[in-house]
């Protein structure tokens, strides 16, 4: 299966990658999402919107397995993104891959799930 990096942002405390894997989109957020990550995350997710439309994606995977923490500004970036996707005529589904050991993810992703249960699923991965 072919994999292409569409966008990569690497900073000291976090990295954001957007990948196309066999025609599907994946966003991988790793490290720690602090205040400095939020504007870059927001911009990255806008780029994902455009790619999802171009590729006519029905599902976008967001990989949080190595995301150790994110603050409420980063959470808000995902809130806006999901809200935007949900409002689309034919919304793509979002599947979060979470790390079952990182307990904060369960509650934070739970909040995102309640925002748009029709399009958001959460898959807790045991590592």
């Amino acid at each position, binding site marked *: 299966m072919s994999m292409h990096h569409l966008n990569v942002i690497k900073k000291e405390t976090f990295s954001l990658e957007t990948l196309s894997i066999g025609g599907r989109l994946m966003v991988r957020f790793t490290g720690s999402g602090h205040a400095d990550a939020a*504007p870059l995350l927001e911009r990255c997710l806008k780029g994902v919107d455009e790619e999802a439309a171009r590729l006519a994606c029905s599902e976008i995977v967001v990989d949080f397995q190595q995301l150790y923490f994110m*603050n409420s500004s980063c959470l808000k970036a995902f*809130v806006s993104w999901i809200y935007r996707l949900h409002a689309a005529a034919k919304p793509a589904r979002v599947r979060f891959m979470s790390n079952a050991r990182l307990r904060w993810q369960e509650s934070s992703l739970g909040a995102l799930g309640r*925002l748009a249960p029709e399009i958001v699923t959460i898959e807790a991965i045991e590592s």
Partner: protein
Amino acid sequence: MEAAAGVEPILRVDLLLCPGAVASVALLVADCCVARIHDADASRRLHLAAFELVENAVKYSSGRLARVELELETRSDDERWLTLRVHNEADADRLEEIARRFTGLRPPSDAIDHYDRLIVEAASKPIGLSGLGLARIRAEGGLELDCAVDGRSLTVTARARIRPEVNPSILPSCSDRKGLAPGRPSEMPRGAPR
């Protein structure tokens, strides 16, 4: 033997407010929780609270300094609380905004309902303004929140009840320990980006 009722200071830090301080102080608070009470869940909840409260202080304080305090309160064998306080200075507009936010955070408002409502409101706010931090501490961390204003001085308090099965009275205090407890409360491996 019943634990003596009282308040035990665990941590007091005076810090110069800068973005780089947020993650470090939050991890310090979390590490102290694990070292003192060996409760990773309480530690995780206090880490979230410390992160959001110190970040708020960095963003909105009118002064350059803040004080962070953590203490363990024992009321009885079955009732212990961890209390985190963040003190900083704020201007009149911020104090008014805080008072408004706390109106929605106090009972009888339901923590999850209130948080979910703010999440919907946050969707259309500009970058950097989530307005979610306090509600997140309450809903995701399950902490009680309060605030006190004295002149231009603001103190925000977050309190977590410790699970009854965790008995800190039989554990060594922070000062008795040479190093931090294994297993970081934030589940962050050492060496991971902060």
